[in-house]
């Protein structure tokens, strides 16, 4: 990143960042990160398609992010009662919360006790690039989800974030800290209206020894929302992190999803599902980073693309020198439902040790297979019905493998179904 920051008139200035922090009454940790984010704005440029491989197909400098206003500071009226383990934020302000659950902290950054946020910024660094710097400089709506050692949270935690302020920059931050041997499932749902919106979400997953965290993000953005997200998990010894990203809406949804397997014997499963319509553009960059010995990772990302929609997948499996006996698999599959839809897929391996158990990858992109259609039609289903069945099966596989409870899977299937129906992809 060598080029100078944009010189266009920007609303996202160091002064604006400081004013936001004052208005929100930052605590120590958030204040510190906000300040370093703001000062990094002077030095960090936007990532560039020419220099940064994950940005090959999207040029953030061309999107005039800095023309967006900083997040507002208004508080929200308290919403009606929510179930236990649920938290609702509107435009970054808490708007409802269910009863508390033993062993679980679920609260926005404004209410956490001093010291509880000392690990903020550990997984997603402030100075990654100009986008992460902007995220921290204008952070609003941080949520801490933390489990005590050995806590088993039976029901999924539901974190819902709705945005409706036109022309603003949204900066949701979710910090998940799982204690030793704890069990936690989090479903974070993002929604926005039809107004233009820029979103820089960050999700940090700090998974303690022996802990199991299942994190799902539902991207149900409005038609004029552009999203640049960073999600990174760091696993300690024998920890297990699973994530699923489901994208059913948004003009541009670009997600960087990383699992850093730093603890021996830890593992990561990453799943992704996208259904594209209209001009939607979904762009996934994934990194399976094997640092420690005996680590395992699996990845399956699938997109079904209708109309003029587009999917980009660039995924890296890295096996470091110390990651002996690593076992890694990476698969990206794209189904083109129209001639104008387009998919780019580029899975890459980078292996530094010669002592691996297995490292494999695969990628495909193409229309529905004619032989499969013939087979299904030969059993009496119309061509349209056969396409519908194939597409649903195709997208259902990551969901089946996600290890989410059946009720949650049905809910997610319903979101996929609604999008496919709107797209007219069989039934």
């Amino acid at each position, binding site marked *: 990143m060598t080029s100078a920051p944009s010189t266009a008139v920007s609303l996202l200035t160091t002064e604006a960042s400081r004013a936001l922090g004052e208005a929100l009454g930052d605590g120590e940790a958030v204040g510190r990160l906000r300040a370093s984010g703001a000062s990094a704005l002077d030095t960090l440029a936007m990532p560039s398609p020419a220099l940064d491989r994950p940005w090959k197909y999207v040029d953030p400098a061309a999107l005039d992010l800095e023309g967006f206003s900083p997040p507002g500071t208004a508080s929200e009226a308290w919403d009606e009662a929510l179930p236990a383990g649920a938290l609702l934020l509107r435009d970054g302000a808490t708007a409802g919360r269910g009863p508390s659950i033993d062993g679980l902290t679920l609260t926005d950054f404004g209410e956490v006790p001093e010291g509880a946020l000392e690990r903020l910024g550990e997984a997603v660094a402030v100075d990654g690039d100009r986008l992460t710097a902007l995220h921290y400089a204008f952070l609003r709506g941080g949520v801490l989800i933390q489990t005590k050692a050995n806590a088993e949270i039976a029901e999924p935690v539901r974190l819902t974030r709705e945005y409706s302020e036109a022309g603003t920059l949204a900066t949701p931050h979710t910090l998940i800290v799982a204690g030793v041997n704890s069990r936690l499932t989090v479903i974070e749902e993002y929604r926005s209206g039809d107004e233009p919106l820029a979103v820089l979400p960050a999700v940090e997953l700090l998974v303690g020894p022996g802990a199991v965290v299942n994190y799902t993000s539902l991207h149900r953005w409005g038609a004029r929302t552009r999203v640049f997200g960073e999600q990174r998990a760091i696993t300690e010894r024998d920890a297990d992190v699973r994530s699923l990203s489901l994208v059913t809406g948004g003009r541009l949804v670009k997600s960087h999803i990383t699992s850093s397997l730093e603890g021996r014997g830890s593992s990561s499963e990453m799943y992704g599902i996208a259904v594209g319509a209209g001009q939607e553009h979904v762009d996934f960059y994934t990194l399976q980073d094997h640092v420690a010995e005996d680590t395992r990772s699996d990845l399956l990302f699938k997109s079904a693309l209708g109309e003029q929609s587009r999917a980009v997948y660039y995924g890296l499996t890295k096996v470091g020198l110390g990651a002996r006996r690593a076992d890694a698999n990476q698969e990206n599959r794209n189904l083109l439902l129209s001639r104008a839809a387009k998919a780019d897929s580029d899975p890459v391996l980078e292996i530094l040790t010669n002592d691996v158990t297995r490292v494999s990858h695969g990628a495909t992109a193409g229309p529905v297979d004619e032989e499969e259609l*013939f087979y299904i039609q030969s059993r*009496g289903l119309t061509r349209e019905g056969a396409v519908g069945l194939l597409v649903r099966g195709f997208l259902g*596989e990551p969901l089946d493998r996600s290890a989410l409870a059946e009720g949650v899977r049905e809910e997610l299937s319903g979101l996929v179904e609604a999008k496919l129906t709107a797209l007219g992809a069989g039934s």
Partner: protein
Amino acid sequence: MTEAPLLEIDALRANVAGNEILTGLNLTIRPGEVHAIMGPNGSGKSTLANTLMGNPRYEVTGGEVRFLGQALDGMAPDERARRGLFLAFQYPVAVPGVTVVNFLRQAVNAVRGEDVPVREFRQELFQKMELLKVDRDFARRYLNDGFSGGEKKRAEMLQLAMLQPRMAVLDETDSGLDIDALRTVADGVNALMHENMGLLLITHYQRLLNYIKPQFVHVLIDGRIVRSGGPELAEELEESGYDTIEAAASPA
């Protein structure tokens, strides 16, 4: 033999990828009849199976096929299926993400033209699975995904059992089966066969015909039937091979 034919194939010619494979094939099958078509590799066995079911990769260039008195030309595969035609595939394709039970339910509803109540459907499914000696957890697996050769053939027979066609074409159903599996599959087919149904076995080897007994055996060479006879013809083939018949059939 006075009943109206189920299937009438009249001077059928068909191309695949621009090559003529079927060169004038004639065959009539009536209710209650079991026919076997035997032929060496490349004689057109799979082309016949695919053409009957309406695979769009195969182009009919001459002749006609009538099923229950109706010309099949230009009819989509699903319509053929709904009219009661069934093909057990030699190489069934895997459909990851779609479970056997989900697939069967949709197929049964499509072919019967009504939503069969779930309870009723399950009862019927389990009964047919027992008949074909397949495990119950088979139903929850993705269709043909990671199936062994034998499992794929059993899945085909399970579909046959659930769809209850008037006319079933079995394309090389014996290939990839060990002797126990072959016997199970054959017992299942025999139990499903009835006097209003027709059965066409397409096979390279005589082995299957020890378990499913045809009344009529036909020899397919170079895209047409060169000899027809009773079960004894299959035995003759087993002893002397296709070469003798091929030599006798080819124009000198």
